[in-house]
């Protein structure tokens, strides 16, 4: 049965978690991706394999990590290897089914910017930078992007192209000769978008309950396309919501209890 009260962030995380099939090997970043991936592991995908760039393979954290290298990730992993090995043997090696990424800016072809707002040499805002995104975008068999939707984030032109999605659309990514297929879905707090099979332009295929096309357009910096058939997302089930909220609650407690230096 579906839940009565939930917020749009919960809907976004739950929608993202549903995209992960059981047994999938998932390269997980911190934040929303890690939350969605662990929710999947605790609900419909118990055998999902979570890989964190710091080294854990098959991580099963009790609570969500605050940092990419929390000890809890190592404690319950199948094994912990070095960071170079993660990127060489496991990601580039072609063993990652889904790479999960966030972004500060995204364009209509799901290229992303995590580097700067403004000019590179004299940025108005210096963002954290690439992290593992360029390699994940290149080598993961598929990429799923998760971020809140707003006209500031979904822009006509990126200030900086940090990690490639479908480049200029069409077969332009294919021509780059990268091993991975690139972004297959963008999950936001309003909807799910997928690249059009020919143009590779992001197309809304699913609206979250109660969200209108106008809301999506207002939160997008270009004229957003909608699929011929746009489905409505299944609202969060009681169980999904309970597991997610328990997880976030456990996490808050655990990190609150962290000892002061």
């Amino acid at each position, binding site marked *: 049965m579906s839940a009565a009260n939930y917020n749009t962030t919960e809907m976004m995380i739950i929608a993202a978690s549903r995209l992960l099939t059981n047994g999938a090997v998932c390269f997980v970043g*911190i934040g929303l991706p890690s939350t969605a991936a662990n929710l999947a592991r605790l609900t419909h995908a118990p055998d999902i394999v979570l890989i964190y*760039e*710091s*080294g*854990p393979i098959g991580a099963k954290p009790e609570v969500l*990590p*605050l*940092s*990419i*290298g*929390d*000890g809890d*990730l*190592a404690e319950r992993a199948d094994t*912990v*290897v*070095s*960071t*170079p090995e*993660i*990127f*060489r043997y496991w*990601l*580039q090696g072609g063993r990652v089914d889904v790479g999960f990424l966030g972004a500060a800016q995204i364009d209509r072809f799901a*290229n992303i910017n995590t*580097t700067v707002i403004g000019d*590179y040499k*004299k*940025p*108005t*805002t*210096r963002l*954290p*930078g*690439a*992290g*593992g*995104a*360029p*390699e994940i975008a*290149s*080598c993961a068999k598929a990429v799923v992007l998760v971020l809140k939707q707003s006209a500031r984030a979904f822009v006509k032109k990126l200030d*900086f*192209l*940090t*990690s*490639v999605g479908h*480049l200029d659309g069409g077969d332009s*990514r294919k021509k*780059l*000769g*990268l*091993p991975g297929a690139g972004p297959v879905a963008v999950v936001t707090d309003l909807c799910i978008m997928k690249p059009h099979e020919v143009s590779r332009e992001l197309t809304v295929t699913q609206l979250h309950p109660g969200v209108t096309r106008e809301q999506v357009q207002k939160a997008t910096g270009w004229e957003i396309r909608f699929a011929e058939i746009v489905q409505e997302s299944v609202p969060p089930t009681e169980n999904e919501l309970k597991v997610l909220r328990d997880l976030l609650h456990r996490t808050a407690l655990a*990190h609150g209890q*962290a*000892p*002061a*230096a």
Partner: protein
Amino acid sequence: MAEIVSLQSAIRAHVHDGDAVAMEGFTHLIPFAAGHEVIRQRRKDLTLIRMTPDVIYDQLIGAGCARKLIFSWGGNPGVGSLHRLRDAVEKDWPQPLEIEEHGHGDLSNAYVSGASNLPFAVLRAYAGSELPKHNKNIRFIECPFTGETLAAVPSIRPDVAVIHAQKADRKGNVLLWGILGVQKEAVLAAKRAIVTVEEIVDNLNAPPNACVLPSWTLAAVCHVPGGARPSYAHGYYDRDNRFYQAWDEISRDRQTFLSWIKKHILATEDFSAFQKVLRESAKEQLV
């Protein structure tokens, strides 16, 4: 053979103004005590190399120790921005900071090829990215067998690598476990290496195939319990997430930052004195 010495003398002997310094530790075993000692000894014009600058480099950059930063992700993990890094890049405070940025896979490969005494590393990345446009150290080469185009980056060969580990024995052999990041590669890629450790024991009792750095690969080993705080040491203490959150406030304002550095680092004699002062500040709710 590594000398077992005080952190103070290790930094004095092995970290010089203008050196390229790699202080590694992927959220685990970050060598904060060593970073503080570099600030205390007021080193200048350092080229700082680190995949994730983290709070440790935010402190060094804000304190004016750095001329250049080579990195791949510059945030405060789980919190947000590194305000001192941003202030240096956006507003040249306290001085301009040259940056060279890469991806994680790229930098970790560059440490591997450095440890392997190769001049460059090869990887599958960057096609379509704008990073190569702004970083002349990201180039492309052709496979001599398949003709494929691949990315190439120069190896990292720091003057000094600094890491924190769990144990050393009395000869200076070092054992670390848990999340290893690129620490071993950083040490083997560097001209000299300093390792701070939680404890010095008679026998490492290392499990088979454990990550051990033989004494003869190291310049100095220093006994600094808690030397990775506020990051964590697997099997010894947890990450102090509260401090990472508090750092957001401390570092946001230049004056607050300067007085924190003055009181906690410049005015303290060593890391144990720092920890004492920090505990007091914590009680006073200043941290």
